């Protein structure tokens, strides 16, 4: 999980605040992600949690932060495009967020080629988000090649999840 330090810290921090200060819930203190979504209408909503639609947790879980690719390909499948349509819409609604698109490859490839392949995947996502209206100044791409797998078995079930581009969002500052 070391590849997501900023976001993980943000999520963890908000989660902790919500847990330890439950009384603050109805005081409108929505933390870093608070964009004034109607507290009264969402009585059970915990700021920063996955049911706060302005939170990174919501983006990661409800919208979906990643799209998957075929072997040695960077073409966006219809399913990937649907995810990215939702990402684009969310990013345009939540305009305080910036995003780094991380491209990844599975282990079936040479190290340096996979870095270039991951860049192709990240770029495919970035170009798609821009085409849907997200300002290019809010987006950045990077490739980790095969250096950061999320699944570690040497089977297609794992490879399929490692061939991915992940949209990592953060508030306000570039890293």
């Amino acid at each position, binding site marked *: 999980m070391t590849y997501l330090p900023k976001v993980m810290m943000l999520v963890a921090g908000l989660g902790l605040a919500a847990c330890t200060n439950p009384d603050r819930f109805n005081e409108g203190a929505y933390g870093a992600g608070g964009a004034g979504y109607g507290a009264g209408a969402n009585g059970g909503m915990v700021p920063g949690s996955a049911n706060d639609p302005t939170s990174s947790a919501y983006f990661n879980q409800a919208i979906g932060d990643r799209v998957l690719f075929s072997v040695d390909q960077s073409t966006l499948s219809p399913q990937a495009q649907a995810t990215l349509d939702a990402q684009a819409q969310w990013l345009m609604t939540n305009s305080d967020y910036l995003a780094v698109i991380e491209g990844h490859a599975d282990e079936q490839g040479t190290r340096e080629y996979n870095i270039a392949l991951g860049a192709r995947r990240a770029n495919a996502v970035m170009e798609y988000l821009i085409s849907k209206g997200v300002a290019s100044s809010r987006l950045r791409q990077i490739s980790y090649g095969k250096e950061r797998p999320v699944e570690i078995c040497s089977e297609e079930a794992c490879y399929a999840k490692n061939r991915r581009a992940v949209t990592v969002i953060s508030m306000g500052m570039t*890293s």
Partner: protein
Amino acid sequence: MTRLLAFILAPALAVAGMAAPALAQNGPLRIEITEGVIEPLPFAVPDFVAESGDAGQYAQQISRLIAEDLTGTGLFREIPRDAHISRVSNFSSPVQFSDWKAINAQALITGAVSSDGAGRLTAKFRVWDVFAGSELGQGMQFSATADGWRRLAHKVADQVYSRITGESGYFDSRVVFVSETGPKDERAKRLAVMDYDGANVQFLTSSNSIVIAPRFSPNGDRVLYTSYETGEPRIHVLDVGSVQSRILPTSDGVMSFAPRFSPDGSQLLYSMTRGSNTDIYAMDINSGQTRQLTTAPSIETGASFSPDGSRIVFESDRSGSQQLYVMPVSGGEPTRISFGQGRYGTPVWSPRGDLIAFTKQNAGRFHIGVMRTDGSEERLLTASFLDEGPTWAPNGRVLMFARETQGATGSSSLYTVDVSGRNLKRVRTPDGASDPSWGPLQ
């Protein structure tokens, strides 16, 4: 004896010929390194004579390591010491050739080690052609501090190898590589350097950021590598002596990786990615001036110079899959050289100029292979779940590469294999290891 001059220039070791130069010998003691199967040449190396009281431990260790170096090539076979008839207790005593003939030792290496009492060791040796009853070449001696005793042994072994094969050795050389710990999804990587045989591992970076694919400079003084230290992959150059590194002035905010030195060490080839397009560039290291060598919209990476610096070989997927191409370093149209089944990457030109080594992926397997520089005579030397990234021994006879094992508990180790495909061996490293780059003969 031009090698002798090179040794004298090496700062850590002082070298002197012991005897008057002998005439070059064309006797029967000779291994021709060819592609055919060879019978390893039997040799004997009795424990070197300790000529001072505190040299005893080193005398034995040095002679054992010489034997290990030689047998490790697969070209030599040691006659065990318990079969020896003669004892060598004085370096100057005449050799009893009949005793060595009787146990079929074709080559005999005798030597002695002394210590000056101030922490400096001197090893001297002679190589004998037992069946000709004569010395092969001339006696030599090497000196080093006591903690450099392995280098003394490697230097003697390089001399023996070179006198018998007619080719330079590779034992007194180092390898820079990536040391790996932890599972696949939390792997920590550090740059490290070691002797060719895995001894004397020394770390060059911390494990705080991903580091990949270090490459030695031609004379071993610097290492190019790619690090994610700044957040995105950038090329760093590290001075091996001071262990200080700096980032090369590639464009900010753009990924740069896959560096490799030019044969004169003044330039590097590298890859830079803009958008989805990766191309090959050259940079003058001192001035930072860059030049773009490829312009196709596809992935071009893994570039390596020919030993004369006139051409480069690289991989490109412009045809739809990774293949190897050669082009003049001055520019021009690349010529595709790989046409077999599967994908080809990580090409590296042999220091002899005759072959290009590569990684090949085909039908779910990885191979290390070699082909001539026009793509003919492709030969696959290894096969496994994942073999990757060959690097040449300084004499162009052996390749080192990384092999990753399959599955969730998979890890990476270094292996060597002869250019003939024989003598596949694992290099002992304390942790996991990948991305080796073999430095020069020291």
